[in-house]
């Protein structure tokens, strides 16, 4: 190889081919995927995130939760995602069109979160988890290996004031000293609203029929 121009054209062609073949082709297929209107209920799916949950998605992004948590459920037969209860079904591309920023994640240092709002529909649990993941409830810790996120809370002296109705009820021994309450910041509230919104419960008839193998394969044919 001596010709610089040929080298350049080859180098260019290789990357152009992969761009067209992978990204452009995928965009052609999925780029205009719309919400699905349920024929009976007449609801649009996936449901848009609420304003607070949308803010929470930004908190999820800035804290780097995706470093250790995935948001993708594989189909029955691939891994143990369904058996672990991480989802009722495998994920479809359409599930993700509601997200501005799609963070599938690539590491499961922590468990999958795609349906965590369905699995644990309990805001109080998430506040405890974020403040003191090592806190024990009924003898078992809330989470193993998760770092505490105490910076998402303010610790306030109650003194003679009325305690905040938002204060997190921590098990004894895991909160601050007596007379101090732990109140979630707006960022924590947004993050928890986002976590609670994570549930792919609607099963799209169009996708389901494409992804389910035929129950009884034809025998013999003609």
């Amino acid at each position, binding site marked *: *190889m001596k010709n610089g121009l040929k080298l350049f054209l080859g180098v260019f062609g290789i*990357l152009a081919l992969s761009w067209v073949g992978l*990204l452009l082709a995928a965009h052609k297929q999925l780029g205009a995927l719309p919400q699905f209107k349920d024929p009976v209920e007449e609801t649009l799916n996936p449901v848009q995130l609420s304003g607070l949950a949308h803010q929470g998605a930004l908190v999820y992004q*800035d804290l780097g*939760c995706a470093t250790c948590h995935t948001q*993708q459920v594989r189909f029955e037969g691939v891994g*143990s995602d369904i058996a672990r209860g991480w989802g009722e079904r495998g994920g479809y591309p359409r599930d993700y069109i509601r997200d501005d920023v799609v963070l599938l994640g*690539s590491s499961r*240092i922590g468990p999958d979160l795609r349906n965590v709002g369905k699995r644990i529909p309990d805001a109080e649990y998430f506040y405890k988890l974020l403040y003191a993941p090592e806190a024990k409830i009924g003898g078992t810790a809330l989470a193993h290996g998760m*770092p505490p996120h105490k910076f998402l809370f303010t610790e306030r002296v109650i003194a003679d004031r009325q305690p905040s109705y938002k204060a997190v009820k921590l098990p004894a021994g895991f909160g601050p000293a007596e007379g101090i309450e732990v109140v979630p910041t707006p960022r924590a509230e947004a993050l928890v609203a986002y976590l609670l919104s994570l549930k792919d419960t609607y099963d799209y008839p169009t996708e389901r029929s494409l992804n389910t193998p035929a129950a009884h394969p034809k025998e013999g044919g003609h």
Partner: protein
Amino acid sequence: MNSPVSNSRAEQQEIDASAKWPVLVFLGAALAWLLLGGVMQLAANMQLHNPAFLSGCVWTTHGRLAPAAENILVYGWGFNAAFAFGLWLMARLSATTLRHGGWLFVGAKFWNLGVALGVAGILAGYSTSFDLLEMPRFVVFLLLVAYALIGVWGVTTFSIRNTENVYASQWYLFGAAFWFPWLYSVAQIMLFRAPVRGVLQPIVDAWYVNGLYSLWFLPIALAAIYYFLPKLLGKPIKSYYLAPLAFWWFAAASALAGGSRLVGAPVPVWVPTLGIVAHMLLVLPVIILAVNFLGTLKGGFGAVAGSLSLRFIGLSIAGFFTAVILGMVLAVRGVAASTAYTQWETLRDWLALYATFSVAMFGAAYFYLPRLTGKVWRSSVLTGVHFGATLLGVIAIVIGLAGAGCVQAHQLADASIPFAKITDSLVAWHTFNSVGFGLLLLGNVAFFLNFVWISCPINSRGTASAEIPAPSALTLATKEGHA
């Protein structure tokens, strides 16, 4: 022609003199980032077995610290080291001096400013959370302009070459110089400027990350291997006529292989399938490269043991084949079903970045620094510590990440094992990895000290270049000039 250009010694000295300051500036910046990134990587890894460590401050929470460390190692260390090595080798192989060095300093300043702002942005909470594209949007323009100022001189040096032939190392350097800016700007446009919707975003990110490793870091490592093997062993590359085929095939297959990172993900099934097929096509270039490298090494193991550069290059060759073969194995659908999302994938990427690329850059630096500065390595203890710690550290990390990956893959597949138990059984492996990262850091501190010692203009032994006669070309071909 079958071996690197062997222009006259005087010419080489002139080329080296023209490259001296740009290379020293890039390598100095690279090593500073390497130490900072190493410390942060170690701290982030310690958080895995000690979750409360540094968790009080939002800036150092694991979700920010780990990506910040990764970005420092990739864009701070990796790119600066690649610039230093790539510009020098391009000048040498093109038999022309590196011109307009002033622009390179401007480029270096802006690149490092961009990386610093980007990393600060991640730590301050402006991360985009896309793997290896975490840096906030405001640094993208800075990085691209700085890259243009630097990359253009690599290409210019190539286009004004004074040689008849173009050697294999030049193909890889030339390709990488173009692939990175295209990959980066396309990914930035498709993710942030005019964002694509839904799961197209992870597809773009997978395409970019795969491209960054296999069309930027691996080609530069291959350029180093192709250059130093014949140079230091004093014999031509075995079956060199196959090298062009390996280059085109490796690049074309790698460019299409990104989808295999998405096996099982909610994307159209042809996306991972294309990636898997492309990965399997890598068999041919891997065989050719094995013939090229191992065939050349055959019978030369004595020389490898005697030369520091060659020892690093040998380790890099081992790292390259492990990385690529592991990538192929992890792409197989049945394997990916259990290894996806585990530390096996971390190991695959780490092998490409550290065990292949970084180690090759160390080997290159041990060759070019004495030539650029005209001095010898001042401490053979420090060079010994660097190689020993790197070798042990690489082995430790391979064992540690593979062990953690095995435990994770095995236990994640069994739904009866609660998730908390998996986390508990990984603690020992994470602790082991911290030892490995600590070893690597120790070696890099030793290298940094030696670098400062050799490159500092105010050397304790005065102008060493005047005292040490230039070694003859013959000895240069067989051993590098370290003490």
